[in-house]
């Protein structure tokens, strides 16, 4: 699998790492059931602290994209691909809204107002 990190990104590192893994899942770099490289491997290759990587992986597990299994490491969850695509689109929506001057709450209100 190929992971890509933007060196000019100013977001917190754990969010960047989570974003990279999310994008890899969305692009089919790793299929459901595939084992992810270990947190140590990821941290060494991406040159990021191992705790940052673990924080990112735990976040993705809470989103339902990853599963932590004892003895099998971290695997991609069933149905993770459409899930991660949606997550990415929500992220893009947030960024676009911010660019146009809408806050998160504005956006939530807009979504609530939809029929």
């Amino acid at each position, binding site marked *: 699998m190929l992971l890509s990190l933007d060196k000019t990104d100013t977001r917190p590192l754990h969010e960047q790492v989570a974003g990279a893994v999310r994008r890899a899942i969305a692009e089919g770099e790793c299929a459901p059931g595939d084992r992810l490289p*270990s947190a140590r491997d990821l941290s060494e290759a*991406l040159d990021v602290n191992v705790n940052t990587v673990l924080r990112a992986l735990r976040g993705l597990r809470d989103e339902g994209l990853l599963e932590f299994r004892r003895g099998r490491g971290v695997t991609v969850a069933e149905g993770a691909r459409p899930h991660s695509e949606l997550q990415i689109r929500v992220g893009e929506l947030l960024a676009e809204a911010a660019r146009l001057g809408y806050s998160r709450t504005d956006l939530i209100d807009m979504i609530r107002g939809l029929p």
Partner: protein
Amino acid sequence: MRDGTATRATTTGGAVTALWTAGVTVVLAGMPLLARDRLPDRLATHWGLDGEVPDGSMPLWAASLFPALIWLVTAAAVIVPLLRAGPAAHPWTTAVLLPMGIVLTGAQAAVIRSNLDRADWHEARQPTGWVVAILVAAVLAGVAGWLLVSRRRGTPDDTATPDEGAPALDIPKGRRLVWFSRSANPWLQLLAAGTGLVAVGALVALVGGLAAPGSLWSLFTGCAVASVACAIFSSVQARVSERGLEVSFGPLGWPGRRWAPGDIETARMEVRRPAEVGGWGYRFSGLGTTVMLRAGECLVVRPRGRRSDFAVSVDDAERGAALLNALRTNGKRG
């Protein structure tokens, strides 16, 4: 043009191998028969480590056929897989068959000489000087043959331009790309588990004093070593990052090898089969070092300043090679 030369070189190599195999066979089988008038009915063929007196013998016909048979089986075991693999794996034939032929021929000559003009095989004396001379000659011949063949093979490769046709990935500015891949061989994992179980069983029997310790210890040691070796080489992880190429073995990721991007001359993808590199696991052959866990895509790198390649059988090797090439050229520019 180069293909023509290569084919001719292969044919010559094949002819030399065939001639050497046939020649050694004839000499091994023929020597006792030629000298049969001056030999006893049974030949002394084995001497103990401590004494001058022989402790093993064979009838004349067996002493003639047995070494020839060993030789033919070895030659077949070396040549047949290489025939399927093509000319690339060639240095092994020389490195194995040359010293092996010398050892067998020398041993046969020594046996004949010590039995010559004896009335009974018990009178034959151990040819110690001969044995030492034969071993030295065999080692020298093996080293010389290996150097000769690998040098001859190495020359055309050195003139090839490394960048020619090497895939390269376009790394967008300000991006950090990393590539991960792995592969595993379920049969080796199964073998590791099986031998591991036997080792544990032997250890339990040893501790419980259920059986005689002598053979049990060797069973335990053998199975434990086999299990660990199989486990280490049953799976492999490869990753390419700004640190270069890192290859690690086994479930623990140890041992491992690493090359910085600057240490690599070129990277590419190649499809290889176990028959081409001499089997599964960590293999040395005419193609260089190969970590072969399954047939198919291999990531192949040529380390800087080396004449041989390192290859590892992992999926998606094409992109790994492309990323490695891109990192290498970026590093050169920056």
